[in-house]
C-alpha cells in the first residue's frame, strides 16, 4: 500500500481546497493503480520498491510480487543502471527530484525508452522517507529523434562527399555551411568561411551587387529555385578567379530564409570548350582553303572551261567532283553546327510561303539525288502557307529531312512530302517507307553525331548532323520538330512553324495583304 503517496496527494489537494470536500482515498488508489496511462512506483529511502501500479506491471511484465523489494531493478537496461542509480543517490543527498531518460525492459523482452520523473518524499521520521516516480513511455519520440538524426547524418554524408560544392547561407548572406568540395574549390576550410559573409567567395566587383540581390530576394514570399546553371565568377582563397555554375534554392527555416547553392567549378570545361572552338576553327580553315581550290578546279574542268576531256578522264573527273561536293557539304555541316551552337548564326527572317520552300527544297534534292523518287503529296494546296522564316535555312531543314528519308528508303521506294495545317501551325512532314527508327535510337535522334547503323548501304555516309542542325534551325524559328515511327514501317519526320495568318483570312499589312494591294494596282 502506498500510504505515503496517498498522504502526499491528500495533503496537496487539501491545501488547495479548504472545503474539506476530499476525494476518497479508494477512488484515488483505483485511479492511480488501475487506469493511469503511465507507470507509477514508490520506494523506500533505500530504493526498495513498495508500490507499482497496474500500468507498470503491464508494461514490464513483472508482477507486483516480484517487483517489490529489488525485483523492479531487473527491468532497467544494464547500460543505464549506473546513471540511474547515481542520479538516485544524488537526489537522496540533495533532496531534489530528478528526471532521467533510460531504457526499460517490456514484457516481450525488448527495451523501450522511458522518462522517469522521481521526487524524494521527505518525512519527519527517517524511516518513512522514500521516492515516488512516474514513468512515461517515450519510445515513439526517441524513434522519431533517431530517424531525424539518421536522416540528417545521411544527408550530411551525402553533402560532404558530393562532387559539387554545397554552401548554405542565411538571409543576411552569412555562410552557415560549407562542404568538403567547397573547400576544395575555393581553398578555404569550412571553419574559415562559416559565419562569414558569402561575398568573401566572389571578386570585389560582384560583392555589392550580390548583397543587394540577397536583400531583395529575401523579401519574396515563396520558396523557389532562384536559378539553375547560372554562370558566375568565384574567387579562391589565393585571390584567383574562376568561372562556376551555380544552382540556388531558397527555403524557410523557422522564421527566416536560407539559401542553398550548389557550385561547380567549370574552368576546366570552359578551357576545353575554348580549345575545341579553336581546334574547329583552325581545322575548318585549314580544310576549307584547299577544298575551295580542289572543288574550284574540278568545277571549272567539269564545266568545260579548260576544254574537252577524253571520255574516260571526264568520268574520273566526275567521281572526284561528286565526292568533293559531298566533302564540302560535310564540312559545311560541321561549321553550321558549330556556329548554330555558338549562337553565331544570323537569321534573316522574312514573310514566305512555305509551299515555295517545300517546292524549292524538293527541286534541289532531285538535282543531287537523281535516282530518288520524291512525291509532293499536297503541298500545292490552294492557300498560301505564310510563315516568318529564313528561306535558306528552312530549305536546308527540308533538304536535310529529305536527304535522310532518301537515305533510309529502299531502292525505288517513294518519299512523300506533305504540307498540312495543325491548329496554329504549318507542318511539313517527310515520310519514307524504310525500316523505321529503331526503338533504342529514338531518344537520341536529334543529337549531334548520331547514327543509325545497318539500315541500307547508303545510310553509312553522313556524320549524323542533319537532324541536329534541323532542330536547331527550327528552334530559332519558334517551331518544333519531331518524328513518328513504327519499327519496320517507315518513319515520318516533321517540323512545324507558327502560322502567320488564318488560312482563309489573310490579315492586312502582312504579305497576304500585300498581294491584295498589288492586285489592285
Amino acid at each position, binding site marked *: 500500500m502506498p500510504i505515503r503517496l496517498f498522504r502526499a496527494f491528500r495533503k496537496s489537494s487539501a491545501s488547495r481546497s479548504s472545503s474539506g470536500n476530499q476525494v476518497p482515498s479508494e477512488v484515488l488508489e483505483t485511479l492511480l493503480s488501475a487506469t493511469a496511462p503511465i507507470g507509477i512506483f514508490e520506494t523506500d529511502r533505500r530504493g526498495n520498491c513498495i508500490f507499482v501500479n497496474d500500468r507498470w506491471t503491464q508494461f514490464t511484465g513483472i508482477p507486483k510480487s516480484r517487483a517489490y523489494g529489488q525485483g523492479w531493478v531487473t527491468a532497467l537496461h544494464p547500460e543505464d543502471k549506473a546513471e540511474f542509480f547515481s542520479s538516485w543517490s544524488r537526489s537522496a543527498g540533495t533532496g531534489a527530484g530528478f528526471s532521467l531518460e533510460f531504457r526499460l525492459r517490456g514484457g516481450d523482452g525488448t527495451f523501450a525508452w522511458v522518462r522517469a520523473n522521481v521526487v524524494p518524499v521527505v518525512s519527519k521520521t527517517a524511516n518513512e522517507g522514500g521516492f515516488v516516480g512516474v514513468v512515461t513511455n517515450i519510445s515513439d519520440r526517441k524513434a522519431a529523434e533517431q530517424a531525424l538524426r539518421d536522416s540528417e547524418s545521411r544527408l550530411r554524408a551525402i553533402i560532404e562527399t558530393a562532387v559539387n560544392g554545397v554552401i548554405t547561407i542565411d538571409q543576411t548572406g552569412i555562410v552557415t555551411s560549407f562542404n568538403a568540395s567547397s573547400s576544395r574549390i575555393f581553398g578555404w576550410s569550412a571553419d574559415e568561411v562559416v559565419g562569414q559573409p558569402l561575398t568573401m567567395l566572389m571578386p570585389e566587383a560582384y560583392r555589392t551587387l550580390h548583397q543587394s540581390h540577397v536583400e531583395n530576394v529575401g523579401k519574396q514570399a515563396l520558396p523557389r529555385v532562384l536559378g539553375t546553371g547560372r554562370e558566375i565568377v568565384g574567387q579562391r582563397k589565393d585571390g584567383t578567379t574562376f568561372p562556376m555554375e551555380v544552382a540556388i534554392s531558397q527555403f524557410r527555416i523557422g522564421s527566416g530564409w536560407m539559401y542553398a547553392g550548389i557550385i561547380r567549378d567549370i574552368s576546366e570545361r570552359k578551357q576545353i570548350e575554348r580549345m575545341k572552338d579553336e581546334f574547329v576553327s583552325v581545322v575548318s580553315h585549314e580544310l576549307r*582553303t584547299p577544298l575551295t581550290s580542289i572543288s*574550284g578546279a574540278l*568545277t571549272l574542268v567539269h564545266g568545260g572551261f579548260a576544254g574537252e576531256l577524253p571520255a574516260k578522264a571526264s568520268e574520273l573527273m566526275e567521281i572526284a567532283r561528286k565526292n568533293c561536293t559531298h566533302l564540302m557539304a560535310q564540312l559545311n555541316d560541321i561549321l553550321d553546327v558549330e556556329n548554330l551552337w555558338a549562337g553565331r548564326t544570323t537569321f534573316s527572317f522574312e514573310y514566305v510561303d512555305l509551299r515555295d520552300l517545300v517546292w524549292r527544297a524538293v527541286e534541289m534534292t532531285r538535282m543531287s539525288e537523281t535516282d530518288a523518287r520524291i512525291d509532293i503529296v499536297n503541298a500545292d494546296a490552294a492557300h498560301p502557307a505564310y510563315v516568318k522564316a529564313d528561306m535558306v535555312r528552312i530549305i536546308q531543314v527540308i533538304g536535310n529531312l529529305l536527304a535522310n528519308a532518301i537515305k533510309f528508303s529502299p531502292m525505288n521506294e517513294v518519299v512523300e512530302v506533305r504540307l498540312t495545317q495543325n491548329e496554329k501551325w504549318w507542318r511539313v512532314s517527310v515520310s519514307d517507307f524504310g525500316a523505321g527508327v529503331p526503338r533504342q535510337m529514338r531518344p537520341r535522334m536529334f543529337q549531334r553525331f548520331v547514327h543509325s547503323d545497318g539500315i541500307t548501304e547508303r545510310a553509312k555516309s553522313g556524320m549524323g548532323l542533319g537532324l541536329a542542325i534541323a532542330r536547331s534551325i527550327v528552334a530559332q524559328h519558334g517551331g518544333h520538330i519531331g518524328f513518328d515511327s513504327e519499327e519496320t514501317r517507315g518513319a515520318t519526320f516533321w517540323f512545324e512553324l507558327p502560322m502567320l495568318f488564318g488560312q482563309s483570312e489573310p490579315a492586312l499589312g502582312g504579305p497576304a495583304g500585300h498581294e491584295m494591294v498589288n492586285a489592285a494596282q
Partner: protein
Amino acid sequence: MVSTTVPESDVKLSKVLCVDDDADICFLTRFVLQDVAGLDVAIARTGREAVEKVESFRPDMILLDVMMPGMDGFSTLAAIRRTTAGATVPVVFVTASAELAERREDSDAIGVIAKPFDMARLPRQLLELWRRRVL
C-alpha cells in the same frame, strides 16, 4: 566629275583585284574571273602588295582574304582606305571563319564570301554584289 552624271548601275565592273596568300586560290580566281567571265584581274599575295596594286591597277572591286599572315584583311582594308585610289573601292571579304565574317559589321566591306565557295558561281556572286553596292 563625270561619275556623278552616270547612274551607278551603268558603271560596268571590269577590274578586280584578288588578294589572297594562297597561290592556288589566286590562280583559280583569276582563271574564272578573267578567262571565263572576261574581267581584268590583278593578284596580290600580301596586304602590302595589295595596297601597291590598288594604286597602280586601280581596281573597281577588291576580293580580300581575311586570314593572311602579316597584315590581315582588316588592316589591309584600313591601309587601302588611306590611299586616294582605294578610298571608296567596294571590298568583298573572303573567309573560312564565321567569327571573322561577323567582324565585317565593323568594316565597310560590302559582302562576305565564305570558303569553301563554288568557283563557278563566283562571277555571278561578284556581279550581284556589284549591282547592290552602296558607294
